[in-house]
């Protein structure tokens, strides 16, 4: 009995001590999280059950009405979700492939590789708004550089890029595919952690470069591949800045670049300022992203190598 009591006392003492340190190290971040993340999340959830508009001081509780309206009646909600999905999946695929290829190239041992790494990282530090504005000019159907180059190669039926509702989303996907910066770094870090002796052994065994890639490189970087897939999907689904610039903040032309975050923003902050409805849409979208992420976690069982020990 006495032992039990003293053990309990010891646990309480340690817990208090640990707790003190826990608060000391995480306190400020925790306050920040509670104020700027947790509170807005809870507030959004509450708002989603009201008919609140920005200027309304007394919002009414409307139950599931906002959710049901978005699912049953709002065609633009469905369109924006569909376009966000297409954008996230297609641009995500391009980003993943580009970042992996570039990471493989930048992992090679050539002179001045540091300079190349810096050059490839540079686009990442430019804000998306500026990137969008520059690309908008580059893709201008009449005066842009891209079409001028295409016409030099004899292309007669020049694409209209972001001007046509048929190709605007595709143009945006192309531009966003340049956003490989951080993902490339993640792959590069993973590639550099693969011990050289594995490749040496493979070469001794007579493995070709393709075999080395599929048998050694790819399996060993699958945890990072999975991490990048999650990152890219979430980035793609919540893409805002580029779509805002490309679509004049309104999904132009003809709602063809209307991604979900833009539609949510328009609903909340343009006339008639339906904050409650936008909050409900945000929660529905959260559920979609969550479902996507869970599917990816499930799928990761089949391609992510476990228990990798690199020595």
């Amino acid at each position, binding site marked *: 009995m006495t032992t039990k009591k003293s053990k309990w006392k010891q646990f309480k003492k340690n817990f208090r001590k640990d707790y003190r340190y826990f608060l000391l190290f995480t306190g400020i971040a925790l306050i920040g999280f509670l104020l700027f993340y947790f509170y807005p999340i809870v507030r959004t959830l509450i708002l989603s059950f009201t008919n609140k508009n*920005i200027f309304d001081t007394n919002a009414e509780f409307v139950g599931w009405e906002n959710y049901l309206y978005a699912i049953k009646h709002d065609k633009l909600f469905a369109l924006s979700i569909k376009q966000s999905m297409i954008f996230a999946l297609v641009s995500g695929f391009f980003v993943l492939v580009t970042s992996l290829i570039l990471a493989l190239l930048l992992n090679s041992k050539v002179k001045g590789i540091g300079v190349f790494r810096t050059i490839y990282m540079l686009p990442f530090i430019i804000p998306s708004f500026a990137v969008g504005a520059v690309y908008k000019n580059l893709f201008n159907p009449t005066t842009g550089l891209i079409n001028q180059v295409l016409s030099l190669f004899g292309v007669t039926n020049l694409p209209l890029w972001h*001007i046509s509702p048929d190709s605007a989303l595709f143009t945006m996907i192309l531009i966003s595919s340049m956003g490989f910066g951080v993902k490339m770094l993640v792959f590069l870090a993973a590639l550099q952690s693969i011990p050289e002796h594995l490749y040496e052994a493979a070469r001794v065994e007579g493995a070709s470069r393709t075999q080395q890639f599929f048998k050694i490189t790819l399996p060993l970087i699958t945890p990072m591949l999975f991490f990048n897939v999650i990152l890219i999907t979430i980035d793609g689904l919540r893409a805002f800045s580029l779509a805002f610039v490309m679509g004049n903040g309104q999904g132009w032309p*003809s709602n063809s670049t209307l991604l979900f975050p833009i539609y949510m923003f328009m609903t909340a902050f343009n006339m008639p300022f339906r904050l409650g409805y936008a909050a409900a849409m945000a929660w529905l979208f959260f559920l979609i992203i969550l479902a996507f992420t869970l599917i990816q976690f499930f799928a990761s069982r089949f391609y992510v190598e476990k228990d990798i020990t690199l020595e």
Partner: protein
Amino acid sequence: MKRRLIKLSLLLSLLLLCPALTGCVSNRNVNEIKIALDIEDDGRYDELFALYKEQTGISVKATYGQDVGKLIGTKDEPDIIKTSTVIIEAMKPSLIDLSPLINADPSFKLTDYIDPIVEALTIDGKVYALPTSLNTSLLYYNKAMFDEHEDAIRTALELEPGESVYPQADWTYDEFQKAGVAMTKFSGPPPHYFGAETQLNWWGEWYVYVQQMGGNFYVPNTNNHRVNLTSDEVIAATTFFRNKAMGPEGTKFSPNANEMASANSFSAGNVAMIFGGHLGDWFSYDVLELDWDIQVLPKPIGRPEAPGGELSADAFGISVRSKKVEASFNFLKLWAGKEGALKMYEFGKIGALKNMQEYIAELPSEKQKNLNIDGLFAAINEAIILPREQDFSKIMREFVMSELYKLMIDGRGAETDVVLVLNRIQNNVNNYYISLYGNN
């Protein structure tokens, strides 16, 4: 050591609390009212604020470029809030009813303001804001471009020697188009020139054509929850809107969506006219050193009695959370009155007072603007307030302009059948309203 630490902590806490405490104290300053203005207004009205302080002893603290929505959302809005005839319906829960203050003040007359504007700011008999400056659709023209193409315009309009080539108050769409075509050069190597702009990011131009041709967006005598866009008038208006950008050489005088992307604009100096341009850009045209003037909007052929363009107004109301209602109202009277209007006129804003034209005429010549002010007030008199429907701008942006865009593009994704597109818009808008309100 422990005591030192405690003292140090206390000192740090007090230092951190100081700004917060100062903020609290300043909030209770009874001799100050707050107003939030646009970023470009920074410093413009300091003289007016000083005048108010001189009259009342109360200072006006202005903040610039802050989002009023966010301020209201965080319950940190100023005493005086900017609104407009367009968003008053959505903003009214944040604003107090000014009617009791207006009725209790014999020195203030609501009848001094232009009637349709006052009506737009009055909901269920309650006045929520006082108008400060007007916005109306006008025909803007670049005089330098007209001078440059004088011979071509004279020939196109069959003008006698001595007759002005500039747009006239009795212009019809025919003259508008002929002059526009005479200044247009869109084929061959650049630079290209166009007779008029095409408004695709905003509904104003198309909507005014519809209105002037006798069409209606909402079905008349309904509660603005049903549209009929397949009437002859709307089809004619949309066809004119399309042809001026998509028609063949000799008809076309505006850039289409493809050409708009190449920065063909009035501001860039290669487009001669804007049909339905608004007042807010006067300052920027001057900064760009454009040689420009204004005229009333041209009318459809055979419809000289057609209405003008849109009429709206910026307005200011008092926050429901303001503790300085009386002081705020006194400032509003000055702000929306003659003194405020004349100050705003210096920056290209036109007050919503019935006597505004007389007040401008009283100004010394150096403060006058070398513009067709008679034309401006004629345009105000014939303009029409936008329908009061809280979803109007959303509908226009998301359903109407997005579909009309397809008529204005050359290439993939284009539509050419005006009636088909109008039918689609009509169905989309009506379905939207049915999903919100049923068949009411």
